Every structure is written in C-alpha cells, then in structure tokens.
C-alpha cells in the first residue's frame, strides 16, 4: 500500500486512537524491533503485545526489546492499569486481556491454536473495551491466531493493519487475517513503522 493510501486510511478513521495492540508469532521479534524503531519515549498510547514464545522459560523479552529500542517496556502484571508511553508484553503461559477499567487480566484457559498467550484473547477483549479507539496490528506468524481477534477489532470500529504477506517472514498469520476481513491497511514493516509514528503523533485525545 502506498504512503498516500495508508495516510488517507488513517485520516479517515473516525476516532482518536487510545491504545494499540500488536500480535506476532514466528519472525515476530525482528518485526517488532522494526515497527517500534520510529517511536520516541513518551509516546501517547499504551501498546500491548502478544508474541508467541515457548512457555517453559521465564521471558526476558520485554527487558531485551525495551533496551534495544530505548523505550519503556515491561512484562504485563495482573491487574495493572494501562499507561501511555509503555509497551506491555504478555507473560508466557497466560492469556492476557484488557478489562473494562483498562487494566490487564490473566487467564490460564486452554491454549488457542497451541498458543498461550493467544493474540485472539488480547484483541477481542481490547476491541470490546476500546471500540473505534483501538488500533490492531497483526504481523508475521506461522498459525492463524489473531485473525478472529483482528476481525473483532474491525467489527467494533477499530483501525486494523496487517503486515503484507509477501513481505512477512512467515505469511500464514497475515493471510489468515486477510481471509476474514479487509483491513484498513496492508503494508510492509517500514510503512507500518511510519504509520505508527504518525498515528501516535496525530492522536488527539
């Protein structure tokens, strides 16, 4: 998608974005590093990320990515209130959801597509809470988790972005999303990075 096209899509979105949710699986670490590289500390929305990882080990993902990006990032805590300017990562072994009071909650329900945390849990719960004020990005990945969640964001009026499957490290996840809905934007990581910087900067809340 051209810069002009995603700019237009973003400009046409009827609500100010108050939160961003991001889902990725195989190839996700590099994709996240790429799209967050354009953010400056003090960015204006909370960002919540589900990245599929093996759940056996304690994760230092938030610490490592935060340090590499020079941005505040942490593993989510149960009951924690979402704050702008922070990147929250789902903890391995638990589903992560957003509650009506904009706090985070955990669940040990069955894995979805063998994944816990599941992107669908985060996306569907956040869509329910934020409605049109939510943006959802679905990136590279080797299964179909996140597709239903992204469709739920769209259905609640939110702004949806899918990584271009032609560019994705593993295209399965973006393709599953495209099979369910036409997102607002389909783009490569470089464009998504620019879009995120713009989305965050033009936020009016």
């Amino acid at each position, binding site marked *: 998608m051209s810069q002009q096209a995603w700019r237009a899509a973003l400009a046409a979105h009827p609500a100010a974005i108050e939160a961003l949710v991001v889902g990725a699986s195989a190839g996700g670490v590099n994709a996240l590093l790429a799209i967050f590289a354009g953010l400056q500390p003090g960015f204006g929305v909370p960002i919540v990320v589900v990245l599929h990882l093996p759940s056996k080990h*304690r994760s230092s993902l938030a610490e490592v990515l935060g340090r590499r990006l020079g941005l505040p990032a942490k593993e989510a*805590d*149960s*009951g924690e209130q979402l704050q702008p300017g922070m990147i929250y990562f789902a*903890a391995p*072994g*638990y*589903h992560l*959801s*957003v*509650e*009506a009071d904009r706090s985070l*909650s*955990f*669940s*040990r*329900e*069955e894995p979805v597509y063998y994944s816990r945390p599941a992107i669908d*849990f985060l996306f*569907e*719960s956040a869509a*329910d809470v934020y409605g049109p004020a939510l943006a959802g990005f679905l990136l590279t990945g080797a299964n179909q988790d996140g597709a239903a969640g992204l469709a739920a964001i769209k259905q609640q009026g939110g702004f949806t972005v899918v990584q271009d499957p032609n560019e994705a490290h593993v295209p399965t996840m973006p393709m599953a999303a495209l099979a369910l809905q036409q997102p607002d934007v389909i783009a490569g990581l470089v464009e998504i990075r620019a879009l995120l910087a713009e989305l965050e900067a033009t936020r009016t809340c």
Partner: protein
Amino acid sequence: MAPERTRDIELRLLIEAIYLKYNYDFRDYSGASLKRRVRHALVQLECQSISALQEKILYDAGAFMQLLQYLTIPVSEMFRDPDYFLALRQQVMPVLHTYPSLKIWIAGCSTGEEVYSMAILLKEEGLLERSIIYATDINPVSLERAERGIFAQDNMRAYTENYQAAGGRQALSDYYTAAYDGVIFDKSLRANVTFADHSLATDTVFAETHLVSCRNVLIYFNKPLQDRAFGLFHESLCHRGFLGLGGKESIDFSSYARSFETLCRPERIFRKL
C-alpha cells in the same frame, strides 16, 4: 455517559440470575474472561442470546450445571510450575515437619491434579500420614473427577517431566496404574483428603491450616474478591502458616500485604506474620 451495551446488560443479568437462583457468585469475577466463556457457552448450549441462556438456566438446573462447566476453568496439570513444588519441598516441608499433625487447604482444586501432586510430595517427605488435605472447589463435577483420581495417559509424559523438575524422589509411575485409556492414582494418596464444595466468594473459613495453596484462581477475581479470599486464607492459617499462589499472583497489592512476608518471590510462597 453512553448507555450500557445490550450484551453487557444481558451478561450482568445472567450473573445476577445465577447468584439468585443457584448461589454461585460470579459477580466479582474479571469481565473479559467471563465474557469469553459465556460466548463459548452460548454456542455449546445452542442459545441465540445471553437472555435466552438466562431463561434456560433459570428453568433447567441441568442446563445450569452444563453452563458451570464453561464458567469454571478446569485446566490444570500435575506439578504445574515445578519450581513451586521444589520450593515447597525444600523450604516449607522442613518447617511442616515440626508439627505433630498438619492441615493443608488446596483452594480451587479443580480436577485434582494439584491434590495428587501435593499428596505425593507429602508422602515423599514423610508427612502424608499426619496430614489432612482439604481440597475445595465450586464445581461439583470437577470435585467428582478429582476424587476418582483418573487422568489421561497422554499427559503422563509431561507430568513426569514436571515431577522430576520438582525434585521427585521416585518415578511418577510408581504412584499410578494404567487402566484403559487413563491412569488411576494410588488411592492411599487420597486416604486423608477431604473433597468439599467451597466458594471463596460466598463461604467462610472451615478449619485452621498450616499451608494454603491457591494457584491460578485469584487471577479470575477482581480486587475486592481477591481481598475476600486473602482474608479467608489469613483467618484459616495458623501463626507463621504458609500461603502458595500462582506464578502471576501476589499478595503485595492487597489489603493483606502487611500481614504476610515473602518466603520465595519467584515461586510465590508467602508466610503469615
């Protein structure tokens, strides 16, 4: 303020109806997970709307029992988070040895995986004979399964790995026999276990205990209900009694933060002050 959305109203009414009719109190459960489970139940129970589900369960107790299976989370495994059981073995059991008799409460025991894990641990530490274990849950179907002690054969490989990582002294297979497609755990393990219906939301304390293990239950509760549960544990525990929580649960931000000290931070074991 925008009017409440119809399905949010329906959900609230359903939860209220369940409370009024069956005295199961989900009113202070976290909303996101509850919504998801109700949505799933709608499909399984073939209801078009939450209102339709409400009518169905009000007039049909059997349908309510079906719904309850979706509302509770019967997902568990033996020696889940092996580090927790290792910490119990190394840091808690030596203290429990100093008591002539022991009472242990496993709150929210679901289908019993943790009960048998605890019984095996106690047995290997020479404490099972002098222990009484209270295994409680709100779901009678789960309690029945827990009491039977039959688990799927498929899970035994993963459970064995957990058991070994938890410092197991034998082979896990020493404690069960294969039967058809499942395995049945040695019934001597549950000789001193009392399985009982108990709700952290509506019931009171029933015994003085030395150790309470309540893992991955409180994550489904809102803050006031978490506080209620901590209050019950505090009241039940003897002086210097132990409290074990799930890996993402903590007493730190509750009203009882100052009533407990941390014994092992990563394993979430606390001790009453």
